[in-house]
């Protein structure tokens, strides 16, 4: 179960001389829900950008032995690396089924693209069940609830056969029940995939992380299990010493997640 799906070595990203990511090593393994946490500006999203081909970097990202640095975004996506965005990005004018069908078809031949869809592919139907949107197949994605959009976006990665999922704040704006469902979904899909989650919500992290990497100022501060990380002195210093900085980075729209790591919410835990 411990096979490594994605290996990042010494990733560096700089914008105009400012190093947003400064020598990060990361391994994503099948079966794990790997949380990336850290204060604002720690380089979490930038790291995801680098892996998915959006930001230029030095260092190396390999998957199945192939070096991905310098490859184009669509190529990396077809290698099985999928990502979501902080604001759920789905095709609002298309239905749930259409969204998933598009996501399932990146390898389709031009000829089949030009024909009408006769019936939905099996994996689309299965995924709709899995993300709880089977009843909404014909609903325009634009009128889905906030949380449903995020599930749909995850679903789109699933039907596209991505086995490395990079999720950027997947529970932003979700209520308690939705979080719980999302947590279950993450573990469910991580069974045969590697899942990385960029998240600020510490309760959610505690409840769901199989492994945690803490980033600070573009570098890895600590890595390990939840317990290892939460007892790490450096981490406590970063989070407690600047206790205002960490939570405030989460967008105001997120509601008010618990302020620090110690006050665990019973219902989620």
């Amino acid at each position: 179960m411990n096979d490594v799906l994605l290996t990042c070595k010494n990733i560096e990203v700089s914008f105009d001389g400012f190093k947003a990511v400064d020598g990060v090593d990361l391994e994503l393994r099948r079966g794990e829900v790997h949380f990336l946490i850290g204060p604002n500006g720690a380089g979490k999203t930038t790291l995801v950008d680098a892996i998915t081909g959006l930001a230029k970097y030095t260092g190396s990202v390999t998957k199945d032995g192939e070096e991905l640095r310098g490859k184009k975004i669509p190529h990396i996506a077809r290698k099985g690396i999928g990502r979501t965005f902080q604001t759920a990005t789905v095709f609002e004018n298309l239905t749930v089924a259409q969204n998933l069908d598009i996501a399932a078809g990146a390898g389709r031949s031009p000829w089949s693209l030009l024909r009408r869809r006769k019936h939905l592919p099996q994996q689309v139907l299965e995924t709709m069940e899995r993300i709880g949107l089977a009843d909404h197949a014909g609903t325009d994605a634009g009128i889905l609830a906030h949380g449903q959009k995020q599930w749909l976006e995850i679903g789109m990665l699933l039907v596209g056969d991505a086995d490395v999922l990079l999720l950027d704040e997947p529970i932003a704006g979700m209520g308690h029940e939705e979080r719980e469902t999302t947590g279950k979904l993450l573990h469910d899909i991580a069974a045969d995939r590697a899942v990385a989650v960029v998240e600020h919500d510490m309760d959610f992290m505690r409840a769901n992380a199989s492994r945690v990497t803490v980033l600070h100022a573009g570098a890895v501060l600590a890595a390990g299990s939840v317990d290892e990380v939460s007892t790490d002195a450096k981490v406590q210093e970063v989070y407690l010493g600047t206790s205002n900085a960490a939570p405030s980075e989460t967008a105001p729209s997120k509601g008010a997640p618990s302020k620090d790591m110690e006050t665990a919410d019973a219902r989620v835990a």
Partner: protein
Amino acid sequence: MDMLVGQLLTGLSTGSILLLAALGLSLTYGQMGVINMAHGEFIMAGCYTAYVTQQVIGDAGVSLLIALPIGFLVGGLMGFILEALLIRRLYHRPLDTLLVTFGVGLILQQVARDSFGAQAVNVSVPEFLRGGVDILGTTLPKTRLFIMALAIVAVTAVTLVLRFTPAGRRIRAVVGNRDLAETAGISTRKVDAATFFIGSGLAGIAGVALTLIGSTSPTTGQSYLVDAFLVVVAGGMGRIKGAVIAAVALGTLQAVFETNSTASLAKVGVFIVIVVFLQLRPQGLFTLRTRSLA
């Protein structure tokens, strides 16, 4: 050698005209991400401002100097109204803004036609700008030197305002990161209005100045607009420095093409150069925001 100097000077002169026409456009694009197709008509409004001022005052020299600030106000006010009535409401629809402002331009042209007649009107060149000056064997009309000077003044003024005044800092903050600026307590709405006022006012000034060398008719703005757009496209939208370099480069290119072939082919040549240039430096990449794709 003389030939080359002549072409360079002509290029500089054409470039400064392009720059005057494009400066405001570049500013408003950088600020709000919208293309204002009525910009040409703001230039035309500046032309007619010069005409009316001269009709009222009589003396060509005095009226030119008075018309410059009035033209700025007239253009600026038109831009301010356009921003408040339409552009603000179409904020997330840049392509629609482009078409809507095209409609505004059509109407403004017809208004000019109905109030001043379709025939071009004459704005006299003041005595002190008549004639030419010999520079390195090339005669440059004084009017063109005046426009060059005006372009330099305008660019300097805009740069200084952006850099050293509180309002300018706010504008730069919004151009840099709109959301962040908003969180920092800057009223982006007010800044938008101010930028549009300044950008359109620059069009008004350009209009006043262009009466010195061109015609003043309802379609005057159209003849500058496409070239101005190309300057903005090539210079990188919203970058004053880019606009300056692009204007001068395009002006020189135009002059060189024109000397060696025909003026018509020069236009086509410039277009091809821009498409090739965009292959090397596509701007689409810089506009992408990574955190959200909305």
